[in-house]
């Protein structure tokens, strides 16, 4: 996908009036440049990502006939580099009849180590009276760099774009593209982007690009049960992906443990519990579970890298890899047979408690206590359980009582 096909580029406003939101800031910046005279202070735009800082610099330059020279965080910004690049510009800007506007993006990213001396060089350049207007952009107020720059600049703040405007704008872009998504998806895009136009357009484009078309107006999401059932009964892969993506569930990260509520809202778990309890031959079961196992790897990687945008592939991957084998299944929210889940809350809870009490006294981890001690301890201490290897709840209660911490008189004595 080249830059022209990216919606954020294609719909980047060409003039001030095409921009969305931040009316006051726009007016202020417009006035600053319109009245700019030799020696005026630079403009510092502060605002969260996607609120139009870069767009504003570009639009201002083009409306007033300046040539825009841009320097951002991807450029090395050491003292030497800034001096050699900016000095000639600032001092000789008008000699050859060029009118230059300097745009320093992401100034809060000036790095203490890699951009050594960059801040002081920048401040000294900015302090020299010049006829070159300078616009700087930063995401937040935080940090030493911004504190210093604020002292020498005219500060204009940009705010997140309100949902009402985002919705209008999204509708406009979709209409221009001749695409439609459901009103539920539109609302989700608008609310999910946190006032960031760029992120909203990117998400909208990937949603449309994946072949998901909203047909009828609907709410935010489908309950997980009907989403999974919709998935199992879809006639085509596209429909199946659609059903999954509408689910109120998500691909959450269970590795730190989660409660029953979130467990039910975990899409991968919902597919797993439905599949594993269905009757089928082992070949088909192995294929289905193998596919879920691969999807789980991907989910873990997304969680680890915090690369949430990668999540958008997972519906598609799962749907394509299990579509054929999963026709005719139905949603089942219980991944554990009743007697097992009952025992988890009974014996399981007691065993975990006992392991926790034993671990420090036997100089072991709870995990090792379970793997290398527990069956033998139960055997030695268990009454009715003795010799069978199975554990009765009464015995466990007796063992826990016997482990009264007051009785500690171990090896130090």
């Amino acid at each position: 996908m080249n830059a022209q096909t990216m919606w954020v580029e294609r719909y980047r406003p060409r003039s001030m009036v095409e921009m969305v939101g931040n009316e006051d800031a726009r007016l202020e910046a417009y006035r600053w440049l319109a009245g700019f005279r030799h020696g005026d202070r630079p403009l510092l735009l502060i605002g969260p990502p996607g609120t139009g800082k870069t767009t504003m610099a570009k639009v201002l330059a083009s409306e007033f006939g300046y040539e825009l020279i841009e320097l951002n965080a991807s450029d090395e910004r050491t003292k030497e580099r800034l001096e050699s690049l900016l000095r000639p510009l600032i001092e000789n800007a008008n000699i050859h009849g060029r009118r230059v506007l300097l745009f320093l993006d992401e100034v809060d990213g000036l790095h203490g180590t890699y951009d050594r001396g960059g801040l002081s060089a920048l401040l000294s350049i900015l302090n020299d009276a010049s006829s070159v207007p300078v616009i700087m952009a930063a995401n937040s107020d935080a940090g030493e760099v911004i504190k210093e720059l604020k002292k020498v600049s005219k500060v204009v703040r940009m705010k997140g774009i309100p949902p009402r405007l985002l919705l209008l704008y999204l509708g406009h872009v979709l209409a221009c593209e001749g695409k439609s998504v459901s009103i539920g998806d539109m609302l989700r895009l608008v609310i999910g982007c946190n006032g960031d136009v760029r992120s909203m357009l990117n998400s909208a484009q990937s949603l449309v690009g994946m072949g998901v078309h909203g047909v009828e107006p609907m709410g935010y999401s489908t309950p997980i049960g009907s989403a999974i059932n919709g998935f199992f009964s879809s006639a085509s892969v596209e429909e199946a992906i659609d059903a999954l993506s509408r689910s109120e569930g998500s691909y959450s990260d269970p590795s730190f443990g989660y409660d029953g509520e979130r467990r039910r809202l975990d899409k991968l778990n919902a597919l797993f519990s439905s599949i594993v309890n269905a009757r089928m031959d082992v070949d088909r079961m192995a294929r289905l579970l193998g596919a879920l196992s691969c999807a789980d790897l991907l989910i873990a990687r997304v969680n680890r890298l915090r690369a949430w945008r990668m999540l958008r592939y997972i519906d598609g991957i799962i749907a394509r890899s299990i579509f054929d084998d999963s026709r005719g299944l139905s949603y089942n929210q219980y991944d554990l047979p009743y007697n097992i889940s009952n025992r988890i809350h009974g014996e399981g809870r007691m065993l975990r408690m006992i392991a926790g009490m034993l671990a420090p006294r036997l100089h072991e981890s709870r995990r090792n206590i379970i793997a290398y001690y527990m069956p033998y301890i139960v055997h030695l201490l268990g009454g009715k359980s003795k010799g069978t290897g199975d554990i009765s709840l009464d015995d466990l209660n007796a063992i826990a009582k016997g482990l009264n911490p007051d009785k500690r008189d171990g090896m130090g004595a």
Partner: protein
Amino acid sequence: MSIEHLMWVEKYRPKRLDEVVNQREIVEGLKRIMGSAGGMPNMLFAGPAGVGKTTVALCIAREVLGEYWRDYTLELNASDERGINMVREKVKMFTRYTSIGSIPFKIVILDEADEMTPEAQTALRRIMEDSAGTSRFILICNYISQIIEPIQSRCVIFRFKSLAREDVVNHLANICRREGVKYEDKALEMVYEFTSGDLRHAINVLQAAASHGAVNDSSVRSALGISYKARVGEVIRAALEGNFNDARLKMLELTRVYGLSERDFIKFAGEEIMRDSSSAKSAELLRVLAEYDYRLVAGAHPDIQLTALLAELARIGKAGKVSK
């Protein structure tokens, strides 16, 4: 009777370095280093399970700190609390102040340090430096490669070896004599085979066997039968016979009710497959097992991974039956 006296592992845990089973080189190295002018350095003990790493650390604490060693020793297990908060809070608090009295320093014994996240290890490294005036650290791990370099370079490293067969068997025989329990040499060999050099596990099996009156073929078999390793073996066999549902129920009982960690499940499964299967097939099974071991560590949903493993084993088992 307290659990410390009940469990032979604890009852017969060596109290002095001289009593430690067959880690002679390590013990001599330790004595040299602790007697030297610099005194005790921070140390890193690496080696397989059940060869005496924790025991040696406890012996050192007792010998250096004397009668009230417990008061000046912080024992932590990183496998239970792996995060950075454990290091920050517990270790920092413990090492913050100099101790009153005649002890030279406090001792932190951090077991299974290779389970710590790299971030927690980095935090620990700082604390080790900052508390050099008050404390010494003994870090214990299975795999030294999982310990970050800066910590390795700040510790004297001791590599513990696996215990020799006759050392384990002699030690077990010795315990039997002191407990007045009759034993057969063959039965002790069986215990060694089953526990693959892990003395701690071997003593627990021995004690369970001895509870039947004597350590002989039948009592050892019955003790091995109740071990989770043997029960994991049953799960694998059920899967390989194509009984996916049966295997899954047994697996859930072990992991969810008894709380056996998924990683120990896979570890025991590997040991059972190596012991059990014909060579050609076991190579394929081990490949599958290795793949799912990786997925278990790298994945997010352990239940899904273990269940998918069983389904895969069931598929292989069924295919094997058809081709016969």
